[in-house]
């Protein structure tokens, strides 16, 4: 299928629904139900659900660009998580609730930070070896105290009641990391577009700052990092919802490792305006940093990837070919 056939309407919809003003409103505590209702109506939430269960039956490789678009538009709801959760529920022969579903990996009795936890009705929770879909309220979601963040601090003292699912090979964290990596690739792309456009507009010393060679060099590196993010995310999605460790690790490692450089250049080129709340840059930068920490940063995934790599007698090229390109 032509990816653009799917992506373009989705992107247009998000452009209209997830405006910077809307994102700020929801981050400020406005009700999310009206936005969610429109997303439900669009049918995209069931993109991965098999056709016999009422969905579109698409592969994650096809849906990957949509997940990136969610990051590009800083969508203030766990849309990617819900799409993947619905797929997992459908695969387990279970029904799914209408509301937004967040992902949480927790140990009983310990706090955990759940991205989009403040705007979820349900949580797909991996806790002490169990995988359940529970009411979000069961984890007593509290704000993290980070400005504008929709993540919640949650805690369960025991596995809560809910729909029980079979365990996922590789764990829920890997599935969540794919959502985060694709979202980061999308946010990174938006930052590149904004920053390039700004460099062409902002005049200092009588010419657009983008004409300054020093800035061109930094922006070229930013473009390289953004393209690397996108390809890494695509490699991750190519493996499907339950991807190999190598695919997930590559996606999350690379997107997380370049996030800091991408954000730094975006800020540097924008100068002071980039720091201000009213300018949209922060919507994407904040997400990039938050998602880098979520579901394992680059060093977390690097350790797992390194362990798998060192356990093999293959050459590096053979190993990545077999694990990621097969």
């Amino acid at each position, binding site marked *: 299928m032509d990816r653009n056939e799917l992506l373009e309407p989705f992107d247009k919809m998000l452009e209209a629904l997830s405006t910077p003003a809307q994102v700020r409103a929801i981050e400020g505590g406005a009700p999310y139900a009206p936005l969610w209702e429109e997303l439900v109506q669009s049918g995209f939430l069931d993109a991965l659900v098999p056709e016999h269960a009422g969905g579109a039956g698409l592969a994650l490789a096809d849906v990957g660009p949509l997940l990136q678009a969610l990051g590009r538009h800083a969508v203030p709801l766990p849309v990617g998580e819900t799409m993947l959760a619905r797929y997992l529920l459908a695969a387990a022969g279970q029904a799914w609730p209408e509301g937004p579903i967040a992902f949480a990996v927790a140990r009983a009795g310990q706090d955990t930070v759940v991205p989009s936890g403040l705007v979820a009705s349900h949580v797909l929770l991996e806790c002490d070896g169990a995988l359940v879909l529970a009411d979000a309220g069961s984890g007593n979601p509290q704000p993290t105290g980070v400005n504008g963040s929709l993540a919640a601090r949650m805690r369960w003292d025991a596995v809560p009641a809910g729909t029980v699912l079979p365990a996922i090979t590789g764990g829920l964290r890997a599935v969540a990391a794919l959502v985060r990596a694709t979202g980061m690739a999308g946010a990174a792309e938006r930052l590149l577009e904004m920053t*390039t456009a700004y460099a062409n507009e902002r005049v200092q010393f009588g010419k657009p700052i983008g004409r300054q060679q020093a800035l061109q060099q930094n922006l*070229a*590196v930013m473009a390289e990092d953004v393209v690397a993010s996108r*390809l890494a995310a695509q490699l991750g999605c190519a493996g499907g919802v339950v991807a190999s460790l190598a695919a997930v690790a590559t996606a999350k490692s690379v997107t997380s490792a370049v996030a800091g450089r991408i954000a730094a250049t975006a800020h540097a080129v924008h100068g002071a305006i980039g720091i201000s709340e009213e300018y949209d840059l922060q919507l994407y930068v904040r997400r990039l940093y938050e998602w880098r920490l979520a579901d394992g940063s680059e060093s977390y995934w690097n350790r*797992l990837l*390194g362990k798998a790599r060192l356990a093999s007698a293959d050459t590096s090229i053979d190993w990545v070919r077999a694990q990621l390109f097969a």
Partner: protein
Amino acid sequence: MFDTLALASLPDEDEALRPKIRAVVQQAIADMPVESRAKSWLGFDAAFSRLLGQEGFLGLNLPKSYGGQERGPFARFVVVEELLAAGAPVAAHWIADRQSAPLILKFGTEAQREFYIPRVCRGEAFFCIGMSEPGAGSDLASVRTRAERTDKGWLVNGQKIWTTNSLHSDYMIALLRTSGKPEDRHAGLSQLIIDLKAPGVTIRPIVDLTGDAHFAEIFFENVELGADALIGNEGDGWKQVTAELAFERSGPERIYSSVVLLDAWVRHLQAVGRDDDATLAMVGGYTARLATLRAMSIACTARLALGESPVVEASLVKDLGTSLEQELPIAIGDDLGGHPDEPVDAGLYRALLYVTQIAPSFSLRGGTREILRGIIARGMGLR
């Protein structure tokens, strides 16, 4: 932005070449020590190149009518990847196969195609690239070496420098000024094929800091060439060089120059059984980046396969790729030096210091980092 670079996969029929090229390579490198294999694409062995020609691994992108395989860029990707993964000595045919023959195919006359390309495909005609001069490196349009028209053809005077493989080459494809002055920039430049055995050609090796002499300076003193030395139209040299550079910059060679060292280091870690968190994270980080660069390089190859000339995309992948290639020896040096009580194999030690010393060249050859970033910036609409 740069949406043209998207995940692509190698077609099965090209992937199918892998076992056969691997078998040929394994035989050739069976006795090569790791430090020689770490030279990557600077290793020279004419007999090996001829063997590759015989086995059908040269001219993969070239038409059958000229002795090629008519397979396309993906086939070349597979073969080049296998050669570099092993550190096979490819320098002899490398430039001829990658860019000279495709250039002649695209812009040359029928007679030139029939004369040169079949020999390139057999691994019997080796080429070098004569672009740089002492006064023209990044600023290629300022070349001064001249070719004047005579009744019989051309008369060449001037000098080229840093010409890789010229000591062992049969021909140079030179960028020369055929009219006007250096101030005229792009106008008045042409590409000519120079037979390096012609009278008046003097080649002087330049020894590099590792002790090798893989490049040279070349002097032309009243070198007479036939009228058939000109490639394409007079004055089109700049346009042709730009197209040629997309071939030069887009391949997997721009991500794998340090991969033999990487593998030797991994084998070292396995041998000493070191698997603390810092080590694992380092191995994993480079593995993830290598995999992503491979995906980017294949994405670039897919543009070539569509018949495009992905100049900007190739610059992007080359700059990111050479960054990884250059970072590896520095990081591996810190890792091995950071564990002074761990015995390091003598070959790995030599390979490490060789790659460390030569690595700065990775971002110079084929266009410097700053120039490539300028090309990317132009592609972003900033210039």
